[in-house]
C-alpha cells in the first residue's frame, strides 16, 4: 500500500525527531529503559543461577536415585508404624540382587558419636555407615589408602575412611592411613582418605568432617529400629524410570503391600529435583515479568504523552503532508513508527544497561553468579515487548494525527 521509500523516510524522520529532542526523548523513555534493564538483569541472574545449579546437579549425578521411608499422605500414624515403614537391610539386599537397571546401591545411616585421636577429641560427630558401592553412587573416590571391601562389611571389621576436613580437625598426619582413632571408645583403623565433596548443595559442606565405617559396623552400633536411607546408581540416565519401577516393585513385594495400598516409601530420582528447580525458576521469571510489565505500562503512558505533544506540535507539518498527498494511513504509520522507534531506542539503552548490570553481577565474589549472562532470547523478547508497547501506546496519538482535517491543520498556529 505504502511504498518502501515512505518507510525509510518515516524511520529516518523518527530518528531525527528523537535526536532533535534528546533530553525529552531520554526522559520519556526512562520508564522503558528501567523496565528493560531490570528484566534483562533479572533474567541474567536467573540464568546464572540455573546454569550453576544444573551443573551441580549433574556433578551430583543425573542417574542417581534416592530411596527413603515415607508414610503415605494423611495416613494415620498407627496404621503405618515406624517399625514397618523403615528401610531394612534385607530390603536393600533384595534391590541389589533383583533390580537389573541398578548398577550400584548402598544403604546410608548416620550415628552421632564422640571421636578421639591422639591430639584431639570431637563430640557429636556423625559417623556414616556405608557399603563399598557408596563410592560409585556418590562419585567420590579414594585419595590415599583403599576403600572398604566386601570383607570389611561381611566381617564387620573396625575400619574407617575419613575426609580431609576430619584429618585437619583430628590433627592427624597428612596421610593418616594405618593410624587408629577412637569412635565411641572403640579403636578403628583408618584405611583410606575419601575425596572431598564437590557440591555445596543440600547443606553439605566441603569443610565438614566426615568419617565413614562399614554399614555392618554402624548397624551394630545403632538402635533396633534405626533410620537408614539408600542411594542407588542407575546404569544409564535413560533407565531412571525403569529403575524406579523395579525398586518400587521389589519393595512392595518385600513389604507385602497389596493392590490399592499406598507405598510406604519414596523412590526419587535427581531429575525430579531438577524439574522442581526449573519450575521455581520459571515462576520467579513470571513474577519478574509481571513487575516489568507494570514498568513497561508506565513507560508506555510516557510514550503516549510525548507522542500527543509531538502530534500537536507538528499539526502544520501533518497538514502539509496531507496537502501533498499523504493518506490518513500514511500519517498513522508515520507516527506509529515514530513511537515504536522511540520505544526500541529505549529498549536498546535498557538492554545495554541490563547487560552491564549482568556483567557487574558476575564480578561479585561468592554470590554464585559467575555464570550470569543475558540470553539472546531475552534480548529479542525485550525488543519485542518494546515494539508492542510502541504500537499500543502510539496508536491513540497516531489515530489523532491521521484524523486531523488538513485545512484545520494548515491553519493551526
Amino acid at each position, binding site marked *: 500500500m505504502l*511504498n518502501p521509500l515512505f518507510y525509510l523516510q518515516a524511520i529516518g524522520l523518527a530518528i531525527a525527531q528523537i535526536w*532533535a529532542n534528546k533530553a525529552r526523548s531520554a526522559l520519556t523513555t526512562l520508564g522503558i529503559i528501567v523496565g528493560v534493564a531490570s528484566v534483562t538483569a533479572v533474567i541474567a541472574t536467573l540464568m546464572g543461577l540455573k546454569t550453576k545449579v544444573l551443573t551441580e546437579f549433574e556433578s551430583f549425578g543425573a542417574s542417581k536415585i534416592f530411596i527413603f521411608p515415607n508414610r503415605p499422605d494423611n495416613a494415620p500414624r498407627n496404621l503405618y508404624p515406624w517399625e514397618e515403614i523403615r528401610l531394612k537391610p534385607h530390603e536393600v539386599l533384595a534391590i541389589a540382587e533383583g533390580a537389573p537397571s541398578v548398577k550400584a546401591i548402598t544403604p546410608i545411616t548416620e550415628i552421632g558419636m564422640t571421636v578421639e585421636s591422639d591430639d584431639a577429641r570431637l563430640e557429636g560427630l556423625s559417623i556414616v555407615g556405608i557399603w563399598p558401592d557408596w563410592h560409585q553412587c556418590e562419585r567420590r573416590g579414594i585419595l590415599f589408602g583403599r576403600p572398604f571391601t566386601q570383607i570389611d562389611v561381611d566381617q564387620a571389621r573396625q575400619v574407617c575412611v575419613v575426609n580431609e576436613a576430619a584429618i585437619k580437625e583430628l590433627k592427624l598426619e597428612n596421610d593418616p592411613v594405618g593410624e587408629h582413632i577412637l569412635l565411641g571408645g572403640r579403636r578403628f583403623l583408618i584405611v583410606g582418605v575419601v575425596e572431598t565433596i564437590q557440591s555445596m548443595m543440600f547443606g553439605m559442606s566441603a569443610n565438614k568432617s566426615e568419617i565413614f565405617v562399614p554399614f555392618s559396623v554402624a548397624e551394630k552400633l545403632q538402635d533396633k529400629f534405626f533410620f537408614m536411607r539408600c542411594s542407588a546408581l542407575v546404569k544409564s540416565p535413560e533407565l531412571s524410570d525403569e529403575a524406579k519401577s523395579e525398586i518400587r516393585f521389589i519393595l512392595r513385594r518385600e513389604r507385602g503391600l497389596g493392590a490399592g495400598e499406598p507405598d510406604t516409601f519414596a523412590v526419587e530420582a535427581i531429575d525430579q529435583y531438577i524439574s522442581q528447580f526449573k519450575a521455581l525458576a520459571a515462576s520467579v521469571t513470571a513474577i519478574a515479568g509481571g513487575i516489568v510489565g507494570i514498568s513497561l505500562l508506565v513507560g508506555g503512558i510516557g510514550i503516549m504523552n510525548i507522542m500527543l505533544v509531538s502530534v500537536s506540535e507538528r499539526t*502544520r507539518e501533518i497538514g*502539509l*503532508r*496531507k496537502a*501533498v*498527498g*499523504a493518506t490518513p494511513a500514511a500519517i498513522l504509520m508515520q507516527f506509529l513508527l515514530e513511537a515504536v522507534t522511540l520505544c526500541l531506542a529505549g529498549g536498546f539503552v535498557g538492554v545495554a544497561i541490563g547487560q552491564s548490570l549482568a556483567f557487574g553481577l558476575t564480578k561479585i565474589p561468592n554470590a554464585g553468579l559467575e555464570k550470569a549472562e543475558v540470553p539472546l532470547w531475552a534480548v529479542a523478547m525485550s525488543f519485542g515487548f518494546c515494539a508492542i508497547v510502541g504500537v499500543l501506546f502510539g496508536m491513540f496519538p497516531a489515530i489523532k494525527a491521521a484524523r486531523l482535517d488538513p485545512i484545520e491543520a*494548515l491553519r493551526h498556529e
Partner: protein
Amino acid sequence: MLLELRDITKVYRVGVETIHALRGVSLGIDRNEFVAVMGSSGSGKSTLMNVLGCLDRPTAGEYRLTGQLVSRMGAAELARIRNEQIGFVFQSFELLPRQTALQNVELPLIYAREGIWGWRSRRRRAIEALTRVGLASRMTHRPNQLSGGQKQRVAIARAILNRPAILMADEPTGNLDSATTLDILALFRQLHAEGQTVIIVTHEDDVAAHCKRVIRLRDGQILSDLPIEKDQAGRFVDDVNERQRQRAAARQTPPARTGEAAAC
C-alpha cells in the same frame, strides 16, 4: 474542460450557527489557464480553493477534475488526487525546517504510488524541479538558510514536482516584499507559458493583474468571471487599472517625477 464545478455549495456549522460559505458556484477552467480567484475575507474564496484543491468536499454539487468526479471521494482517494493532480503553494511556504531544499521538494514522492524502483528518477525529477525554479545551487540548504523568495521557490518546485493538473497558490506573495513578489509572479507566468495551469487565490489586485482571467467572489457567489482586460466589475479593478496607468505614465515621463520630487 480540465475541471468543472456545477452548483457547488458548502455549509459549515459552527455551534448553532450555519455558515453558507459557497452558495451555488459553477465554473469551468481549461488546461493552461492562468486564473486569479479574488474576494474579500468571508467571500468564500478560501473555501473555493479548498474545494478546488480537493482538501475539502462540497456539501452539494458536482466537481469533476480531469473527468473524475472528486466531489464524492473518500479521504484516501482525495489524498491520492492531491498527490497526483494538485500542487499547493502556501502563503507561509510550509517547508519542513529540518530537511534540505531537495528533501522538501521530494516530499510528495514519498506518498506517490510508485514503488521504490523509481528512486533514481525521482531524485532526478526533484533536481529538475529545483532547476526550473532557479535554485539548482541551493539544493542542500535548509529553509533557515534561504531567503523568503527562495523558500517560496522551493515550495513551488515541490508543487510542480508531480506535474500536477493544477498549480494552486494561496496568497503566494503575502509574506514577500514587492521586489520578490514580482520575481515569484514572473515565475508563475513562466510556468504558465510552459503549459502549466495556474490558479492564484489573492486579495491583491496587483497580483491578479498578472493573471489572464479573474474570478471575483462575494458572499459565496461568483460576482464576475472575466478575462483580465475586461475585468471591470469591482471598484478594485478600476483602482488597479488606475494604478497601472499611473505606473505606465511614470515610466513614460521620468523627468516630470524628478521635477515633482525637486518641487517637494
